[in-house]
């Protein structure tokens, strides 16, 4: 069974701070991390591999330095990696991203299962997974907590909804987007680290996956950012001082005046 995991490099939130006075974004440094949900996706794939045997390929579309993220995941036991990198991919919205990933997955051929994270923490859109599945014309399940291979051809998943949970059965090939609940990511091992260091990571351009330049990146996108700005400043914070009894009373009256439900 061939499994593909899609991962994304995102800015490290540690370096993103809100200035307490201006409430604007302050960035220090340009380090990136692997989108945390994508590490859960990797873990979900590796657990299936442990149990049933599988070939796991990790894939990302990003700048050349995204190779780092791929090597990190290789050192956790993924079999191989593909980097989609091309100037033409820059500025992609979720549609153009899904278009590039779909073309690359088609090129790999014969893929039974695709894992994505629930969402990327920089954009928080949660769109790439469903759009990718639609482009590949395969069924999908979002917000998945548990994945089991029922038989050669079917997956059984438990997904979380606003109301509770649902159990679905999907025929393969399929795509799944995962939550933290699938299990904590394993750490890199010495054995796999050695292999990851030596591994060659192929770099595919738009042309390599058979896409003309106007189908990818900003040119292939539907949506355009026209403005970025700081969120409106919150009403000034109110600090409650004094003895605990006073704090309790002040908070209670404040919440009551604000008509907080349940009081």
């Amino acid at each position, binding site marked *: 069974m061939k499994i593909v995991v899609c991962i994304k490099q995102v800015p490290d939130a540690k370096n993103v701070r809100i200035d307490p006075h201006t409430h604007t974004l302050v960035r220090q440094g340009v380090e990136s991390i692997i989108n945390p949900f994508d590490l859960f996706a990797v873990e979900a794939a590796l657990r299936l591999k442990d149990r049933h045997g599988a070939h796991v390929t990790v894939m990302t579309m990003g700048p050349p330095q995204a190779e780092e993220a791929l090597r990190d995941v290789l050192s956790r036991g993924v079999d191989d990696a593909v980097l989609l990198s091309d100037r033409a991919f820059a500025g992609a919205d979720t549609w153009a991203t899904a278009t590039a990933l779909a073309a690359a997955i088609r090129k790999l051929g014969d893929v039974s299962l695709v894992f994505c994270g629930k969402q990327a*923490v920089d954009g928080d859109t949660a769109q790439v997974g469903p759009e990718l599945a639609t482009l590949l014309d395969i069924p999908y399940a979002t917000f998945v907590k548990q994945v089991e291979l029922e038989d050669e051809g079917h997956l059984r998943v438990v997904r979380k909804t606003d109301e*509770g949970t649902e159990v679905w059965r999907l025929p393969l090939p399929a795509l799944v987007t995962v939550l933290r609940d699938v299990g904590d990511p394993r750490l890199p091992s010495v054995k796999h680290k050695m292999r990851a260091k030596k591994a060659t990571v192929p770099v595919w351009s738009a042309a390599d996956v058979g896409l003309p330049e106007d189908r990818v990146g900003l040119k292939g996108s539907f949506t355009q950012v026209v403005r*970025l700005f700081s969120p409106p400043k919150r009403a000034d914070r109110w600090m409650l001082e004094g003895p605990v009894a006073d704090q309790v009373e002040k908070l209670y009256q404040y919440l009551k005046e604000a008509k907080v439900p349940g009081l």
Partner: protein
Amino acid sequence: MKALIDLEKCTACGVCQDVCPVGAISVPETHAVVSDDCTLCGMCVDTCEFQAIRLPDVGAGVVSDAAAYRGVWAFAEWRRGTVHRVSYELLSAARRLADKKGVECAAVLLGENLSSAAEELLRYGADVVYVVDHPALKDFTDEAYSRCLVELVRDKKPEILLAGATSMGRSFIPRVAAMLQTGLTADCTDLDISEDGLLLQTRPAFGGNVMATIICPYGRPQMATVRPRVMRPEIQPRNGRIQRVALPEDVFRTRVQVLEVIPEEDTTARLSEAEVIISGGRGLQKAENFRMVEELARLFKGAVGASRSAVEEGWAPVSHQVGQTGQTVSPTLYMAIGISGAIQHIVGMQGSKIIVAVNKDPEAPIFDVATCGVVADLFEFVPAFIERVKRAG
């Protein structure tokens, strides 16, 4: 492609150089220069007070009959017998946008046995409610729901389509956008119409630290999901009409099988729906103390949240985790008890209307996002506060 600098306007002030997250901008002498490292993220555009930076245009989705698309639609979310409140919120927003454009406003209702639900939608400003009532829509599946909505859109051609950023909307609306080959903006917190009639979609990015306004210049319909509780539902009854639509059987076909639907009976576990969330962190010290958080949550009829540390300690299940790797929540009241306010926690809750923080450390970063800060020992404050709430009045 990269960000474009207007040499006439650029004053070489260097502000953009400092904000560029990938270090792609340098300001050698007379004006800023953008290198090939530019990822077109747009961070620099709005920080330039001289409006000297812009991004190149998007190119996808030019529909030849854009003018044929008219009207604003809201997707009404039907969940096992009731229309979810977010539907009325959306409909009120759709009404406002439709009035601004001088077009019709419609709601789309998909489900099974939809007796009186459509009439209720007319009271919230719909000129027309399209209803597809079919047994295959009893359980939600991405495939059947998408196909139905896509068929309706292809037939009636609305210019704008809104849906809730709920677990349902966030799951199937991207599929609808992909099938229709148009753009989608997730989790909008503000919607407006631009001077040239486009939908201005504003949403938080980078965990709410920045707001971005996004347009879909060529694709139709222009699609957006909106978070629950962001828009206000307004009753404005219309002499609207209800139109039942029959669709061919193959539209309802789906490859997934829904084996079980298990509603969460414990309301303290339903974070995304809760009006009040009481959240606890490592400051609680042990599992028994976490029960105080649960008790307070029950008193407010709210849900229980937790920091990652509290989850790791085993005081609360993973599904209660709020933050970057947990849930993003925006209740009316979020109360953080013994939580320091690490950025990974803050990005998951800073959209809440009222944030109360209880912490003994006055320097704790949680106070930076709090609307009301209580500097106190939680072991004194929380029990006393519980007593006060019980006493009411």
